């Protein structure tokens, strides 16, 4: 029984990270109907900025995190302005190539600057356990990760629903042309979306590698991105709440379902993909996504 509990705790912990990166993916998707393949690498770069600020500049770690979020937001806004905006938003394929190019570029830059060996990351959350039942320990880390996730979603929801720029964002993601017609400046709004997504991604990566069990290195987000994309799709690519549900679900599938199923552990990703596929077969736009209505 305690093994099950231990697995549930693992699932919560991993799932929260997938959920955070999924949030970033959803934000970009809502704005542009694109998947940003470089999202994981932006997040990883942000994580390294936290590392540099904390260990090399001596800035207190949570301030580094906020600073890194701000810096990556600015960088992403710049990238949107220079690399994304020149293209017609409805033509996806050039943008896919741009994000793939960014994926390669950012990963390579991080690899060149910091090389590929794992490094310790500041412990953002208090260490130790909330309680222990046999071998099942609920770590403070897991609890705080979930709290961070929920706080992030709450703040994002507030941002999108209660501020003017959030309103503009929702308008743009709902109908691009109409938004332009009512005078919303689409460019800066999309830029805002990219910036927020990058900040959320950085926070997600920072929280992920702040786990005392993990270390940061440039390839850390490679597989997380796949799980996070599956999570985003599962919950619905344009639903923020769906990202949370999707993330936790994928985490649970990986940690809880796989060990008890005939699927061998090394095919854990296959389990996640199968779950995703089954859900999409019944709900083609994900659990909470809005179904696309096509006009003929």
């Amino acid at each position, binding site marked *: 029984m305690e093994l099950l509990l231990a697995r549930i705790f693992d699932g919560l912990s991993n799932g929260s990270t997938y959920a955070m990166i999924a949030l970033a993916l959803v934000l970009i998707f809502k704005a542009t109907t694109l998947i940003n393949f470089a999202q994981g690498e932006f997040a990883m770069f942000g994580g390294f900025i936290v590392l540099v600020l904390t260990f090399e500049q001596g800035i207190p770690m949570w301030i580094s995190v906020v600073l890194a979020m701000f810096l990556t937001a600015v960088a992403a806004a710049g990238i949107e302005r220079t690399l994304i905006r020149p293209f017609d938003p409805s033509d996806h394929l050039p943008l896919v190539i741009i994000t793939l190019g960014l994926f390669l570029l950012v990963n390579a830059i991080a*690899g060149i600057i910091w090389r*590929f*060996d794992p490094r310790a990351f500041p412990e953002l959350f208090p260490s130790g356990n909330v309680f222990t039942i046999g071998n099942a320990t609920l770590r403070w880390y897991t609890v705080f990760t979930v709290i961070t996730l929920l706080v992030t979603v709450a703040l994002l929801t507030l941002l999108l629903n209660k501020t003017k720029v959030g309103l503009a964002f929702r308008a743009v993601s709902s109908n691009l042309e109409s938004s332009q017609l009512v005078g919303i400046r689409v460019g800066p709004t999309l830029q805002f979306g990219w910036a927020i997504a990058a900040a959320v991604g950085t926070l997600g990566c920072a929280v992920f590698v702040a786990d005392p069990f993990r270390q940061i290195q440039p390839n850390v987000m490679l597989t997380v991105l796949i799980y996070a994309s599956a999570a985003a799709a599962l919950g619905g690519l344009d639903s923020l709440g769906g990202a949370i549900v999707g993330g936790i679900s994928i985490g649970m599938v990986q940690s809880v379902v796989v060990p008890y199923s005939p699927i061998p*552990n090394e095919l854990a990703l296959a389990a996640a993909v199968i779950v995703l596929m089954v859900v999409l077969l019944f709900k083609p736009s994900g659990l909470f996504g809005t179904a696309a209505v096509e006009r003929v």
Partner: protein
Amino acid sequence: MRSLTKRSVAGFMAAGLIFAACGSDEDSSEPAEEPAEEPAEEPAEEPAEEPAEEPAEEPAEEPAEEPAEEPAEEPAEEDAGGGEELPLEGAVEVAAGTTLNLDECPDDWDPFQGVDGDEIRIGWSGPKSGALAAFGAIGDGMQMYFDYVNEIDPIDGKNLTLIQKDDAYEAGRTVANVEEMIDSDDIFMISHLIGTPNNLAARPITDESCVPQLFNSSGFPFWGDPANFPWTVGNILNYVTETEIWCADIKANVGENASVAGIIMNNDFGTTYSNTLESSEACAGLDIVDLQLHDPAAPDVTNEMTTLIATDADVLISGTTAAFCPQVAATLAASEWRPVVYNSYTCNNLSSFYAPVADAITALGDSAPRMTNSNKICGDPAFADDPAILLVEEVLADYGGVTCADGSFSTGVLYGQFVEDVLRSAAALPGGLNRVNLMNAVWNADTSNDNLLGGTLKLDGVNDAYWTESAVIQIVRNDGSGNLSFESTGELVDFEGAGGSFGS
């Protein structure tokens, strides 16, 4: 789609006609395909420093002996003894059971290719990008050491030149890289290719082109097969031997039927450990309760560790590497399970992998990872004043601007030293530096390296086809202030000569 079908059929008929017209042969002289997998990984070994040379003496050639099998001709000439220049054509026996059939080499084969000018050109292909990019530092480390040698004491008055190519660990790219290097980069030899599939794919090419392929960085045992592949030489302590050393240690210190749990990286590297555990005689009798395979690109292994912790086995085998080394230690430390832990020695770069989890090491006490190390680790305070280690640090600092903690560069230095060693030996032979002398030097090597903990680097043709065969089991210790070091738990285990060659 009827027209498609018709056209498809027509297409295939056309292809069939073409196929029928061609007389492709199949070459089925394949040496035994390995049952166990080999890890192809590059361990982050920290060699200690080494004063530039090592004694280079090559024992004289064996007297006339039947070569193990010769597909084509009778040996045209035998080597009659040291002091005589080895012939550069015909079948040349360079060591016990090891014959180079030079007449089967390509028409434009030149034993002096790559060393006929003022350079010694060495080719290397490895993962400089992709999920295993951490091992790309090995190529850079080799380059740094070669720069050092060129400045301090050039071999034979020539410049060591390393041609590095990136294959992102893809065997297909390794093949293309190797072909291109042989065709157009004028290389003398290839060394330290990383990866089992990569070395496996390159071997037929180097064998056919008669290009030395030395020190394959893959722990698969079948590189020691001079009878069939005289141009290919293995390198690192192979993982089968490593696992057997563990099993011997377990049986001696934990129990004949100890329960064993394992976390294994799901690739050629890790599955060698699991296969050996399950099928080797040395490990028979141990109770293997659970082996968890994990995706090499997984973000972490907490799920697998949770399952293993629940087994409460006596022993944990950690057949994984790189970023997972510290993860296993940290997850273990946080639990209450305290098994005896054996880690792949590829984790032994303390400053790279374990410094981030120094506290976990303290918490683990005697459950800290044990590794079968063959060489001194750069960064281990026990060797802080060791001249061999000091040299490594100097080379890294002066020629690369890095330290041992920055990555696997020190492994590259050690590998560079192996290459330098055999090159100097070959250059000292009558006839000087050429490919035949190089293979002679390698297959009869009897040398040592000050970066090693002990033992010799000895090859003797088919009698002893494995380069590195000795190791000491060492456990990681934290001295209380975050300084990690290795403490030996036993004596040097020396399998020198016992490995024979593959298939024997």
